[in-house]
């Protein structure tokens, strides 16, 4: 019993210690852009959906929930955000090559259509980020329209 207590105490100390290792926050303070690139405009209704359901992981601004301040929750989230931004960052979209912009628009339509985005573990904790049928159609149509116009331009 004595041993078990010691072990528990040790684990508790580890838990306390890791609280001091806080990952850097993903907050640039920028305002989400309605012109994500020179040729792509994001209408207000589309922007609202993207901000609400995508930008926590796919932009330079995350709205952090309370549990993100408790480790290892915050680390987990930081790794998600890193991966999300690597794959698609709306704040960097204008810097992508046209080839990449086209791929990203198509990937947006694909992943929404397949239901792979927003990821289920995110939706579990962010109920408001669920996309309705109308939301999905809105985003997919927006992505496809801009994909077509980029394709025709080049």
């Amino acid at each position, binding site marked *: 019993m004595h041993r078990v207590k010691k072990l528990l105490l040790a684990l508790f100390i580890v838990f306390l210690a890791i609280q001091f290792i806080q990952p850097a926050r993903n907050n640039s303070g920028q305002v989400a852009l309605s012109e994500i690139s020179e040729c792509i405009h994001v209408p207000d209704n589309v922007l609202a959906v993207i901000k609400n359901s995508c930008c926590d992981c796919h932009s330079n601004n995350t709205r952090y929930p309370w549990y993100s301040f408790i480790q290892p929750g915050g680390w*987990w989230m930081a790794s998600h955000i890193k991966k999300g931004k690597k794959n698609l960052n709306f704040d960097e979209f204008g810097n992508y090559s046209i080839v*990449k912009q086209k791929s990203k628009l198509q990937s947006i339509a694909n992943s929404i259509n397949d239901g792979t985005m927003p990821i289920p573990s995110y939706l579990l904790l962010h109920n408001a980020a669920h996309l309705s049928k109308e939301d999905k159609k809105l985003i997919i149509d927006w992505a496809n329209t801009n994909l077509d116009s980029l394709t025709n331009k080049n």
Partner: protein
Amino acid sequence: MKKIVLGVAMLTTFFAACNGASSSTSEAKTSADSSTTKTSMAPAATEVTKSTVSIKGILDTYLKMKNAFAHDKDKDAANAGKDLIIELDKIDKASLGAEQAKTYSDIKDDAKEHADHIATNAGNIKHQREHFDMLSKDIYQLVKTFGAGQNLYYDHCPMYNNNKGADWISETKEINNPYLGKAMPTCGSMKEELK
């Protein structure tokens, strides 16, 4: 109480493992980034317009992937994805003019992402094919820029992706549909001959 603490310990290990995995991917990304930067900083040599670069290695690997998809072979496609990343990196940008180097590096960056998704998604052929669709556009651009060096055909499948359609490049005149695979192997038509 014991259970809670144990739970926390297990979670810690789990999350630490997750973090480890993601940081290794981001390292790979960083190295890819730095190679791109090098390209864009290459000296601007405008005098070279015709390329002497052969994209045969890239095309061969792409065609191998295409044939894997035509036979619904997700694992073979994934292996071709790995090889394609290597082939894409083999092109010597020093032999390209400034404009071609830029075109190549834009296409390469994008194609590598698709190849990576295909390489890491064996078991999810639907997702692999989504990236194959986009990859095919990149490869078509490469052929248009650098020449095929062989007879190739640009084929179209009208039914894929809810009738949105998709294209692919083939080495044979006969249709071997990589999007619908064995379900509809001969669906599609040739829309352009490439040389």
